[in-house]
């Protein structure tokens, strides 16, 4: 199998991810309630972590992929903060 085909498939997948992120952003801006927006942001960031890994493959710079896990962890922490906020409690409780 030629290596060029691999990179072509990966670049098509990257473009697909780029287009789906537009849909997530529409929900992020439109979303009637706050949990809707946070949910869209979650999905966007988990997509973005895949996107970073695919870009590292595509640019042939594997070392670039280091931002992936930090993004995942902080977005999860954000979920917890927001659900604590919405349940009308102080974060320290």
């Amino acid at each position, binding site marked *: 199998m030629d290596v060029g085909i691999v990179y072509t498939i990966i670049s098509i997948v990257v473009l697909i991810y780029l287009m789906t992120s537009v849909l997530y952003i529409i929900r992020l*801006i*439109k979303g009637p309630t706050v949990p809707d927006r946070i949910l869209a942001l979650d999905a966007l960031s988990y997509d973005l972590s895949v996107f970073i890994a695919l870009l590292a493959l595509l*640019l*042939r*710079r594997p*070392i670039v992929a*280091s931002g992936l*896990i*930090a993004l995942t*962890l*902080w977005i*999860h*922490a954000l979920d*917890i*903060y927001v*659900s*604590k906020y919405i349940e009308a*409690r*102080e*974060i*320290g*409780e």
Partner: protein
Amino acid sequence: MNRKDIALALSLSLLVLALSLTISLEGLGPIVPRELRPLGASFVQNSYNPWNASLTSLSLNVVTAIVWDYRGLDTLYETLVLFASIAATLVVLRGYSELSGLGIKGLSDVSKSVTVVIAPLIVVYGIATAIHGHLTPGGGFQGGTIAVVAATLIIAVFSLEYLYRRGVSTSRLMLLRILGLLAIILTSLSLASIGMPSNVNAYILQNMAKDDSALSMPGVLFDTPLAGSIFLYNLFEFIIVFSGLTFAAMMLVLRESELESIKEAAEVYE
């Protein structure tokens, strides 16, 4: 969020696009060039070059090598700025008191059991990022901030009360932080203080041996480049950032009844 806002935002971003296209028509070359730029080549030659022992710092990650080895003072002052900002938090919230026994509410059982599983993994990944900082992207600050996620998750999911019962208090974290800063200062002075009594040339913040001074930090451990002082700086910076940011988070999320004592303290000062 009405239609007019979105249309305005879209036209604004198109304007920015047009401006940046106009500026970049000159062409800056590809973002990921296949060959090294001359500046990059000189950095690589001077940071990881085992064949020229008087120039190398044995750190594969050039950014960390530059920050800790060539511009070590810069990062020392950054650490001091973080220290000072946390001292400022302490000044603003002076007179606070840690009350235990206020009760635990926390989040649901699912979140609690997942946090118990995931928090050690996060801390381990943070430590790995920190002490691998001289080989891969990362370093003390980055590893510390990754590990702080675990602390904030525990605070939010379990509550502050849980941390108090585990013996984590703000005064202990402050002590850990001061010890870390002292360790960084001692590491930066160590080679100079060894060299001075025996009348050998040595510099402050020196890492590897140079042409005119033979003293050197340990360089290689079992075929792995250890990068001497850069490894130690990353480790201590991890401790400083982890304890400092956990301290700041604990101060910021104090409960209402704990904040009451601040008002009383403020009246005393007035």
